């Protein structure tokens, strides 16, 4: 419990630092899955550890102890967690859960809006063209999802590039990339340390769709040109006031497409999986430790209660104290 409960936090930090760097150099399809799986497991580990730490603090509140029939004194003697740590964990846990709930409501609302919008778009074709001269193109998830492109965007692309754009957006819809986005958004809301994973995830999805378009057309350069030209055309359109530098995502995509396809390496995936396994194992150990601690404290409470009545004290696991006694009044209330 002393160390193992903190391991998931450590894993979260390691993952938040390393995963984004690795994922950008990796084949995007497995990278997206690894980032999504990693984020989900890490976020659960984060919440689990916080919950355990919070619980060890809450268990020392006399009213809680009475309810669970365990001895606060025994727990304190056994418990290596400082109350301050426990209090901080409780506050963080509440903040995490609130963040998660807010993000979940928002995400569901947005997805429902997108689905409604898909149905409202004119026509029943896969492609909906907006009669708008400024260049826009995006995939709108729904049932079925739609590709939305403005005629301004179509006019600034060549014939093959237009096909590349369609293949790219189609890849987003077919791969259900909005579900990956949802996973990253929710995990980042629950654990802000995972935000870099969400940002990298967005980039990796674009790379995934780029690679799929390149495979569909059998030509990486055409996709690179389509991305580059669309971005340059968008840059010429009147810019929005709130725009900041976006860290060069488009040049990175173009560069990746002009280079040979990225390798599929297994080692980072195996290492990541091992890290997550360690996190899960530690959490399980911490949980079982705290269960033992509670059992010990229940035993102590029971023994104290028996002492009060003057009965002989049995060894652990034997006699009336192997189960919490039901007919005593508040046996865990007193300390020695």
């Amino acid at each position, binding site marked *: 419990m002393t160390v193992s409960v903190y391991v998931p936090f450590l894993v979260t930090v390691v993952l938040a630092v390393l995963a984004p760097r690795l994922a950008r150099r990796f084949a995007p399809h497995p990278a997206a899955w690894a980032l999504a799986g990693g984020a989900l497991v890490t976020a659960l580990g984060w919440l689990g550890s916080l919950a355990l730490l919070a619980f060890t603090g809450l268990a020392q509140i006399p009213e809680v102890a009475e309810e669970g029939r365990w001895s606060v004194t025994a727990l304190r003697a056994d418990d290596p967690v400082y109350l301050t740590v426990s209090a901080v964990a409780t506050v963080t846990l509440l903040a995490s859960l609130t963040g998660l709930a807010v993000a979940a409501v928002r995400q569901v609302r947005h997805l429902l809006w997108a689905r409604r919008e898909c149905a409202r778009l004119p*026509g029943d*074709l896969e*492609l909906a063209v907006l*009669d708008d001269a400024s260049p*826009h193109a995006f995939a709108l998830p729904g049932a079925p999802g739609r590709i*939305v492109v403005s005629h301004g965007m179509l006019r600034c692309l060549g014939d093959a590039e237009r096909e590349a754009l369609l293949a790219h957006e189609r890849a987003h819809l077919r791969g259900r990339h909005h579900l990956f986005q949802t996973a990253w958004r929710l995990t980042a809301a629950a654990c802000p340390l995972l935000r870099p994973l969400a940002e990298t995830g967005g980039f990796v999805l*674009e790379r995934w769709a780029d690679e799929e378009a390149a495979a569909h057309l059998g030509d990486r350069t055409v996709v690179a040109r389509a*991305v580059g030209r669309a*971005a340059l055309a968008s840059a010429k359109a009147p810019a*929005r006031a709130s725009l900041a530098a976006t860290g060069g995502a488009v040049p990175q995509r173009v560069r990746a497409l002009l280079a040979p396809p990225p390798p599929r390496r297994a080692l980072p995936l195996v290492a990541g999986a091992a890290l997550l396994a360690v996190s899960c194992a530690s959490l399980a150990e911490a949980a079982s430790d705290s269960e033992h601690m509670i059992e010990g404290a229940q035993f102590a409470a029971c023994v104290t209660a028996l002492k009060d009545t003057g009965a002989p004290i049995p060894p652990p696991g034997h006699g009336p104290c192997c189960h919490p006694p039901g007919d005593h009044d508040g046996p865990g209330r007193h300390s020695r």
Partner: protein
Amino acid sequence: MHDRKIDETGEATGRRARGELESGVLAALWAASEPLTARQVQERLPGDLAYTTVLTILSRLHDKGTLVRHRAGRGYAYAPVRDEASDTAQRMHTLLERGSDREAVLARFVSELSEEDEQLLQRLLGEHDGGPADEGP
């Protein structure tokens, strides 16, 4: 039973391919500045599609009311039905220009460029195709 399953997947693939072709044809017509004949559309689509396939798609899109056509020589020239006044275009335009947190669910084709990005991109593309568009509408 087994055969029917194969047929069904075949049909699904066919429907999907037809959907993709329709998108390609519609995009080509929107990209052009004037109405196009079936032959012209065929030239602008990648791969070697049969002329009759293009013709079938064009007349289906016309039947659906997505395209308008007028006589051109022995055949028809097709153009997309424009709807500048449509509230969808307006709504989307406002959403994208003003920005909104709903944007989060859209997978946009390109993100915005900083000025350095723009120069870098010009260089990357310039290095690679050695000049401006060699193909275009």
